[in-house]
């Protein structure tokens, strides 16, 4: 359990630290580095950081969407006071600033000088640091790197993204009620809950309350089916919006995507000893879940028909492959092909069926090879464009 007193002290410390960084930059902009005032400011900042890094391996500050977040604690008052500076940071591509243990005074000073220079001119912080990595061994600065290839550890990234996770967890908590105790159809209450969940997600995405790129680009190793449902729902709606579909259709697609795997939530048969391998019963359940899901959704009053279609078709490939097998190849529904892209993408990025998650790059490469066979080529093209727009292919 965190100590409330300690939390409050930490918050004061973090706030002071951010102000000291801005103070240091201001001093360096007014005085040369050798000036006593500049020296005092930089020294003070360094002392604070060193004390902190003696106890923790790193300290991460996020500047994103006009917000300042230190070690996952948002500081709205700083966000308001430092708005021009944060906006300038964003144009420089400075979304995260991480100081690691072993930081030296000289390294800190040179970094602040470089940053100041960039603030006055143009250029990407990340790009400039990358040119001289040996000069800044204990500082990581640049865009939010949300993948395993980053120099940040997964723990650091996930800590920085705890807000997002917290949001996803809150959502998935609600979904436990939605997907629990399933029978042949969903009750009125469950339908309302599903609609509310989708509407909330849509509002959050449309309003930019949680950056889409955080939802899209972080890997979600959590194998929890509810987390998967939220991710697929959010990603499908994002893709539908990217394809300029009407809001009403986006919401219906979101509903289908949220419920796409509902056939897997039916009670599992019992009686088999647990094995490391996926059992035949589990496989059968997996092969049949599109049909069972579609049955449940068709029998549920108050749901759009798209939801049942998505449940049935989300594992059918564009070229007619996949499952369940159909009598004849038929054109798939747009909602189904969108959900299929999001579903496979999220499955590749999580622990699923005994397979480890792929990195963003590997997942995209895997998917690229299947455009036109597994995925509808045009919808997949939209997906690639969306990923690009989200800024994850800059490197």
């Amino acid at each position, binding site marked *: 359990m965190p100590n409330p007193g300690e939390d409050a002290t930490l918050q004061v410390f973090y706030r002071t630290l951010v102000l000291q960084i801005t103070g240091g930059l201001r001093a360096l902009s007014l005085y040369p580095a050798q000036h006593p005032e500049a020296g005092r400011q930089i020294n003070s900042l360094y002392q604070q950081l060193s004390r902190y890094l003696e106890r923790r391996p790193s300290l991460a500050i996020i500047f994103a969407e006009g917000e300042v977040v230190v070690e996952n604690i948002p500081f709205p008052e700083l966000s308001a006071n430092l708005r021009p500076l944060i906006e300038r940071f964003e144009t420089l591509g400075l979304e995260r600033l991480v100081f690691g243990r072993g930081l030296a005074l000289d390294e800190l000073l040179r970094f602040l000088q470089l940053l100041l220079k960039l603030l006055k001119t143009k250029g990407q912080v990340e790009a400039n640091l990358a040119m001289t990595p040996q000069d800044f061994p204990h500082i990581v600065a640049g865009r939010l790197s949300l993948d395993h290839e980053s120099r940040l550890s997964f723990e650091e990234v996930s800590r920085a993204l705890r807000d997002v996770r917290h949001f996803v967890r809150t959502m998935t908590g609600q979904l436990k009620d939605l997907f629990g105790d399933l029978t*042949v159809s969903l009750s009125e209450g469950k339908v309302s809950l599903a609609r509310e969940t989708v509407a909330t997600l849509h509002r959050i995405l449309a309003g930019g309350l949680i950056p889409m790129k955080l939802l899209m680009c972080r890997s979600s190793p959590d194998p929890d089916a509810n987390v998967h449902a939220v991710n697929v729902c959010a990603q499908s709606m994002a893709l539908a919006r990217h394809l300029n579909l009407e809001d009403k259709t986006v919401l219906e697609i979101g509903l289908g995507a949220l419920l796409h795997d509902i056939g897997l939530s039916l009670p599992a048969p019992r009686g088999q000893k647990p094995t490391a*391998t996926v*059992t*035949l019963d589990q496989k059968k359940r997996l092969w049949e879940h599109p049909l069972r899901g579609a049955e449940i959704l068709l029998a549920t009053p108050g749901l759009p028909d798209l939801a049942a279609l998505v449940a049935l078709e989300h594992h059918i490939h564009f070229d007619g492959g996949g499952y369940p097998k159909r009598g004849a190849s038929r054109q798939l529904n747009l909602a189904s092909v969108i959900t299929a892209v999001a579903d496979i993408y999220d499955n590749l990025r999580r622990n699923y069926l005994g397979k480890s998650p792929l990195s963003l790059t590997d997942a995209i490469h895997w998917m690229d090879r299947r455009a036109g066979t597994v995925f509808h080529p045009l919808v997949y093209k939209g997906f690639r464009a969306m990923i690009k727009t989200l800024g994850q292919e800059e490197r």
Partner: protein
Amino acid sequence: MANVTPLEQEAVPAAVSSAVVAIMRAITVARLYTVSHALFQETTRKLHSALREAIAAQDFLFLGLAKEALFLNGVFYRPKEAHLQKFLRLFYLLGISYLLFDREISQEEVGSFLSLIAGSRPGQGTEISSALPREKIVRLSVGLLDYSVFSTATNVAARLARSSEDEVIWRQLILQPACAKALNLGPQQVRELLRLCDDVEALKAVIVELDAQIASGEQGAKARDLLGNFIQNLASSIEKVVPEKREQFARQVAALIDRVEPRLRRHILAVMLPDARKEEGGAIQEIFRAMSDTQVAQFHVDILREEGPESSSFLNLLRWTLDRGREPRLLLATIQKEMLRATLQGSPDDLKHWQHLEQLIIQYHEVRELDEAYRKEVASLTTSIQMNVPMVEEEEMERLLATVNADSIQTARGYLIIELVAQRNREQGEATVLSLIRAFGEILASLHREKDFRGIGELLRQLFLALARHPHEAPARETVEAALTADEIRELLDRLLEDCRSYESRESAAIAAICQLFPEKAGTYLLDVFADLDRDDNPKARWLMTTLGSVGAHLTRPLNRKLQIAPDSALPRLLALVPLCKDQRLSHVLGKLMDHRDHDMRLQVVEMMGRLKAERSVPRLAEAVLKRSWLASKKEKEVQVAAVHALAEIGSDEAKKVLTQVAREGPSDMQTLAKELLQPPRK
């Protein structure tokens, strides 16, 4: 020849024993480690090597698995080693009776098979077998034979063999798929094979015996594979030892097929047709090609009747017919002829199977065409998008957007329901099916309001096939029937008939399906159309006759009404439908029509009374036949003759009593006829 090969042994050959050890070890590992784990990979690799060693120079490794014995190369081994006993017990509990490993089996296939077995429960043999293709395991097959086949094979082999070595060979020929290459035939066995090749009666005796033994087993349908194994193995063995006799043996098999009873002929043909997707058919292909369209159609309808539309035999047969050069149009024309014949013969049950077959062939052909068109479309679209052709992208986006509009979704929902119903999921209860069908009914009603008659026709055609032989077929049909009113059906058929020109199978398939699903409502309307026809010898008249015949059991009320009000010109063709109704309630109206002013009509009415086997008509017929008159005209006598024949056809006690009375005291010329007809039919 002296008995030198023991038919039962204990010591399993070392290479096979090692492979079994590797299988059991690998299954244990698969239960403890995931497929990506290094240990799983390593054990799979070792098992793959062990299997390759056990297969050695052969093409296959066949392991027959009885409860306590391993069948290998014609010998039953009763092993003492614990791992072998565990192995046999494991597969016995799963319900798997043999494993057939192809020498080209890959390590990936071995790994997937291990995962399947490790994750299975006792009794899941059938599910394992059907999971193989889905898991991309193609060079391994599992058998689900009734265990009694081992004793069947042993019994037949023992009778045919002259020594224990012979017996080993016969067992392999019967039990083991594709065993010819592995057999080492001695001179005695080669002589025996040549005898079977030369003497069709000897071959027939062996096949009939094997069939009789199989028929006494519990799982006749699956055990029939033994017949296929045996004939194919004989053919391959003959080809191996005396290649020049290959064609002669093919001719002998053809002769054999002609000499056995129809049921066995069908079985031999069905089991001998290899998988149409993979193999050439050899001799059997020639036999099949030589069959006329009528024979092929009859063969289909028999297998459909016996084994059902989803049986592997029927599906394979359909592939053979339609994927290997037989023209669907000609086959459908043959089927239409057979349907008309069944109608005229008053065989509604046959007619039902012919109609089902017609719809299945149309659907298969359509699916093939649609798949082909879709494949081309997919390839072309993918290329255009890769090449960034903006116009194609815009058009495709428009098409995709159209899939989310209300009309498309409604139709898609209809097809979705059909797909769910067609799954015939065992756990899918009647309530679920009926709820799906009710939802389907709402879609039909809505499409009717939108005047989308063609859309309704297509949906109903698919539904008809989905419901054929469905476990909940009867209540589901009742529910569908309530979805549209008689007036709606009348309007629907009226509009769809407007588009018909040739009335050939594909053109009229949707209407035929509607008639099956709404027999009374559709029948009432079609009767009106049938009565109003101006000719009887055109495709429309023949089609109407067949279609009305197929819903004959539902025509009593409308036909009864129609017979009372129809003009004279329509009466003959309406009367022809009477026997198809098989409902004695029509006797009353027929009785009235016996007084019709037209003599030919009266004759036809009397004939129909007989064909209807209407006991209720007996008094009326008796009255006509026993009527004595010095002034009886020629026409009256003709009616009396027809009435005597009708009484004989009715054949009930009451009818026989009347015939006896006629034979005793009827008009003199009727007495002779009645006596003749009362004689039991000569054999």
